[in-house]
């Protein structure tokens, strides 16, 4: 089990204990974290599971592939720490991960 934390734009905090192996998007969906729509069901093709990753965790993640780059690149609210949470696989290495949810998905 690892702990991941989602912080809504409003400031509401969701600390979740989860088994590893599923994507961060699925963790959010399974725990009713608001602000993650996941319209494409995890296919990296709708960009509705956008998160801002806490800088301490950025270099522990596999960098975005070309498709994720394309989807993120269309968003003018993209930041350097923007990721699509369906492309982040939870693992023991990410125990303690903190991500912020963007206002535009509120």
């Amino acid at each position, binding site marked *: 089990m690892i702990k991941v934390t989602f912080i809504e734009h409003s400031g509401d905090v969701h600390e979740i204990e989860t088994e590893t192996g599923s994507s961060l998007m699925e963790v959010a969906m399974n725990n009713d974290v608001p602000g993650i729509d996941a319209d494409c069901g995890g*296919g990296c*093709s709708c960009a509705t599971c956008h998160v801002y990753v806490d800088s301490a965790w950025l270099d522990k993640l596999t960098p975005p592939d070309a498709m994720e780059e394309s989807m993120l690149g269309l968003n003018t609210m993209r930041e350097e720490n923007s990721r699509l949470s369906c492309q982040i696989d939870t693992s023991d290495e990410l125990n303690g991960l903190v991500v912020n949810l963007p206002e535009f998905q509120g």
Partner: protein
Amino acid sequence: MNQAMKNVFSSGHDYAYNTPLEDIDVSNPRLWPSEEMWAVFKRLRDDDPLHYCKAGWDSAARSPDDEPVGPYWSVTRYEDIMAIDTDHHRFSSEPAIALPNPGKDFPLPMFIAMDQPKHDEQRRVANPVVGPMNLKEMEPIIRTRVQTILDSLPVGETFNWVDKVSIELTTQMLATLFDFPFEDRAKLTRWSDVATAALGTGIIDTEEERQAELIECLTYFTELWNQRVNEPPRGDLISMLCHGKATKNMDPMEYLGNLVLLIVGGNDTTRNSLTGGVLALNENPAEYDKLRADTSVIPNMVSEIIRWQTPLAHMRRIALEDTILNGKHIKKGDKVVMWYVSGNRDESVNADAEKFIIDRAKARNHLSFGFGIHRCMGNKLAEMQINIAWEEIMKRFKNIEVVGEPVRIRSAFVKGYSELPVRLEAW
């Protein structure tokens, strides 16, 4: 009713099941107002989910310079549509995203029909108009307008819901996005219809007529451009385009193309979902009862309406290389048509896909907005408009009763209505 029985009685069964598979052409607009296309799509999903049509529908009224639809692949299952929509490196959106090729003498470049990198550059310019800041500002404006429109409706009398509500609301919204002179807003509806109409279906008869009206549109919008380019940048679309780095040097036809994209994208789609919702609830009275009992279902219902309606029936691509998909050999240069309308009814991924269920699980997973880099840019605005409309409708009316047959548009692209006679009953 078992499936065999249902097929016998469903509209379009004869064409779908008595036509040799290789002769089936679902691009024929004749199949759409009669809803015969549902049976065709059912057969294609079952028997030939990646279907090759040798010769697509050919409008007799087209200009001699225009190419006919020609041969095309129909992609009818959810998973295959998803695979193509998200593969923009192998499937190009140029030069057009609907079945017919653009006329040679009147090309209309628009970013939805461009590939990377130009698509991304232009889309990023227009994107903020439907961004979170603008949506927040628009929410109260939309609500006030919806209230005004609904309060003006004649209770107990028969009227056309399409004219009085769906068109009125979406056109007002579009005028706001462009900061377009409000008193002239009916022009936007007309240009939207003209841009997408199949020839000879009551709106325009020839390509020349279409071009003449679209040039009027360009002339009108050029005046707005010239005003705004000399003013400080503002939040409306014209101002964004004429000040945006990637769009400020567009040539006139490219300006017109992008205008048509934003007019059609912001108009036809939401209009027909606003109408489709009323029809769907009337055809499914138990769902209407569910809504009356608990209006907190509205956001989920809005996604279900957009799935059920699928206001744009397809998007097309051109294969950039030879590809094997589902055992079929798609060749470089082939025209590939993703029928969102069929994928949204694919029983293999969505149980009871043919049913309208307002509290459907995973209702948001529909194809109507497309997926990948061309996914609908205005989807949040569309959902907000339809949400607000139903919230305000349910405060006022116990029943919107459909009292006559809907008149459906004769098109394999815009799936919608020109008439829906209704009668309102207040609470």
